[in-house]
């Protein structure tokens, strides 16, 4: 594939986003090649499209989306209304049986986290030294450009993490997954602050957890700071703790830093890497517990640490460097040959806080309604028939994950496990307050 030179054309003052190719809204036009990723409700595939094009397809079972599908509608709309080189846009979206197919550009190296970790492992096996800081700063700078665009459009992303920052083979970086993004401005009405409790605990800003004053776009800056640590260390600071504990640590402790990591992990690939003072400062700036003290995207981009990359020539050099040193040594995701799934280690704090799904109902078999005109209706006429193996696999996947949910541990259990006696009282107080604030609502993630 040719190098993407469309950066400038795609800029925010682009006159039109019309492309010559219209992606057909028809599943039979696409050949699913391999799995790129798998979430609780969705699978992402690498796919071949007409005219020898490639794309990624997120297949999401709408039956697992609760309430009125508004969230998924807003997610797809947010993608459709974005036109920025650092945002994953949407080629097309259509409904196929109970699934939504969402077509996006293929980011062949997968998430930035996956890609850096693979590169570190490969370099270690070659006995070469992995110096990732330069690449991380490049990824962070690109991410900020995308995030700035999101904020300018009156949105909060709400789930910024390295797993949602994707890398293409040529070094392009794009923010993905508007799954939980919220609108501060909608239909002309002004919402001062969002109040929904969503996200993934390790990346959540304290004010999002506290649920007291609401939060605004500065919550993304916190998540961005955590993402920086995650890229440096391979996982988010509190990823080893259960979600409730993560909430407590985030609210009560000083903001995490590189020092929050205990470097005794058996395969902590990053633990021997040294990071500069400027990198530490960047993290520190973003991880202010008071949102007002966190910088904006604009301030970060024009600040001392990252502003040197605003020069297009420098940016181009950095892109080339990450392409040759990282992208080129890491295999593509979802290609026929690579069976590897993203190496995102499942740690307790990585689990999204999610809604408890309604379970599948066991239906009495073979009930047929009788109508006076003699017509009989079997519900089986509506049962989707798996046409090929792929769809069968999808069904299987749906069954396996259907009704999956993460239940937070009870307060007692948590206190028992935490093994920290002197904060026991604080813990209890926090739990009480927490339960009041959430008023027994299920944690949700669409």
């Amino acid at each position, binding site marked *: 594939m040719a190098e993407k030179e469309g950066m400038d054309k795609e800029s925010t003052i682009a006159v039109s986003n019309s492309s010559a190719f219209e992606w057909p809204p028809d599943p039979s036009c696409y050949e699913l090649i391999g799995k790129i990723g798998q979430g609780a409700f969705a699978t992402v595939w690498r796919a071949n499209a007409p005219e020898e094009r490639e794309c990624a397809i997120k297949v999401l079972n709408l039956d697992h989306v609760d309430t009125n599908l508004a969230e998924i509608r807003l997610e797809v709309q947010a993608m459709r209304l974005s036109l920025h080189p650092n945002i994953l846009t949407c080629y097309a979206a259509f*409904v196929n049986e109970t699934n939504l197919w969402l077509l996006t550009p293929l980011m062949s190296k997968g998430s930035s986290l996956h890609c850096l970790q693979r590169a570190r492992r490969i370099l270690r096996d070659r006995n070469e030294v992995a110096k990732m800081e330069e690449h991380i700063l490049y990824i962070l700078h690109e991410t900020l450009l995308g995030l700035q665009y999101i*904020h*300018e459009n009156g949105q909060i992303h709400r789930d910024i993490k390295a797993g949602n920052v994707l890398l293409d083979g040529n070094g392009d970086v794009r923010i993905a997954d508007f799954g939980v993004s919220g609108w501060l401005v909608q239909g002309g009405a002004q919402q001062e602050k969002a109040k929904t409790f969503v996200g993934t605990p390790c990346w959540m800003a304290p004010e999002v957890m506290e649920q007291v004053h609401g939060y605004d776009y500065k919550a993304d800056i916190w998540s961005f700071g955590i993402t920086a640590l995650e890229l440096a260390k391979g996982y988010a600071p509190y990823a080893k703790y259960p979600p409730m504990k993560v909430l407590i640590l985030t609210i009560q402790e000083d903001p995490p830093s590189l020092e929050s990591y205990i470097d005794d992990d058996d395969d902590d690939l990053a633990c021997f890497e040294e990071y500069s003072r400027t990198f530490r400062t960047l993290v520190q700036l973003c991880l202010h517990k008071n949102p007002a003290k966190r910088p904006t995207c604009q301030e970060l981009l024009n600040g001392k640490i990252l502003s040197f990359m605003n020069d297009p020539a420098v940016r181009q050099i950095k892109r080339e460097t990450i392409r040759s040193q990282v992208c080129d040594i890491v295999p593509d995701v979802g290609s026929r040959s690579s069976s590897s799934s993203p190496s995102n280690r499942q740690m307790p704090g990585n689990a999204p806080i999610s809604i408890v799904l309604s*379970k599948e*109902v066991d239906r009495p078999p073979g009930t047929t309604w009788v109508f006076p005109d003699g017509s009989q209706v079997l519900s089986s006429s509506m049962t*989707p028939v798996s046409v090929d193996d792929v769809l069968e696999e999808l069904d299987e996947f749906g069954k396996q994950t259907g009704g999956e949910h993460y239940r937070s541990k009870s307060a007692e259990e948590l206190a028992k496990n935490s093994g920290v006696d002197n904060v026991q009282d604080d813990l209890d107080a926090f739990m009480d307050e927490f339960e009041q604030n959430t008023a027994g609502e299920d944690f949700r993630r669409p």
Partner: protein
Amino acid sequence: MSIEGPFEWLAGGLFFGKQQKGGIESIDSCGDALVLLKGIAHSLQEILAQPENNSESPESPAILLAARLRRLRFLLYDERRVPKETIRWGNHSPTVVENTLQGLLGHEMNDLIPTLLEHLVVLPFESRKDVAAIFNYLLVSGLDGTDAEIYRPHMIRFRDHVEQHFPRVISAILAGHDPAVHDQKDVCLHYGSMYRACLRHPVLYHRMVGTTESVRSYVFPFLDTFVHLPNFEVASDAMETLREVMTAGQGSNRDPAIQQELAEIAATFLARDYDEIWNQRFTTNLLSESANYMTRRVALQILSTVLLTRSNYSIMIEFVASKTNLILIMKLLRDTSPHITLDAFHVFKVFVANPNKPAEVLQILRDNQVKLATYLTSLHQEKEETDTQFRDEKALIIATIQAL
């Protein structure tokens, strides 16, 4: 320059910090809405005169227009950022809104809003968002928020302006949804949001559904075409619009007086054009097996909201007196999707609870008495633990069926 507060992101990178050249720089620092509007009108004329000019020079009409629209949008939204204390002491008068309206309502630029709407598709990508944001802001700014009262008189003036140009505005919105007119999916979404902003005003809502003719022209395109478009984002947006048309945007207006007025308008047109809406379109096209999963699921929600709204009593009575409708709902009750079966239950219960069931409805229920009782018992058992209302309703419906 630094700005603090929740609206900072709207200021964003386009206007501060970055030093830009020539015309755009002066636009960046322009604080006068009237000057910006004149510039917008001028650039728009230039674009329309030379639609093929794709120049990327910083002085090209498209780029100047984009900068001016973004700046105006920022000024409007930023104005609302004033501290609450200022409002309380009565020192606040929204001069940006005033100046904007003075320009738009004046003789010189009276045409600007309809013209912008008619040519949204030739505007730069970001400018389309800005036009929709400005239009929607001016149209609903006096409805929501603690400071809504300050903006209400201005909003009313803008609403009257939209009404004055209603035929052009609504034609632009409907044409903008039509895939035969253009292939820009994002534009449909902007038009959808503007249509829904109009629906929040009884006067404009009435223009859309006040007569059978207007319903045919302004609502049926959604029912007949737009909700069936293959692209999810466009079809789901059209479904959302349809939901707000048919349910009078239930829950979106905080003012109960306005909400009631809207509900009455809804009840009137849903009953007046009952056959064309429900029999010829809604049940046959949206709830049938030919419609896709998303359409059926949302349509069923709309149906149950409409039927269970008090002001729609006559519509409910007519709906549950129909044998065909009962058969349809019983099919949906057996769907494979738990979401659809749950919503189907909330419609089905009205058929059962109806004290004056027609003979043919009664006959069907009697013929399936045992099966229905068995089936309903097993339906969504998991919900009974948490949802006591559902549990009680289900028990009552089963008992009623058994006693038939």
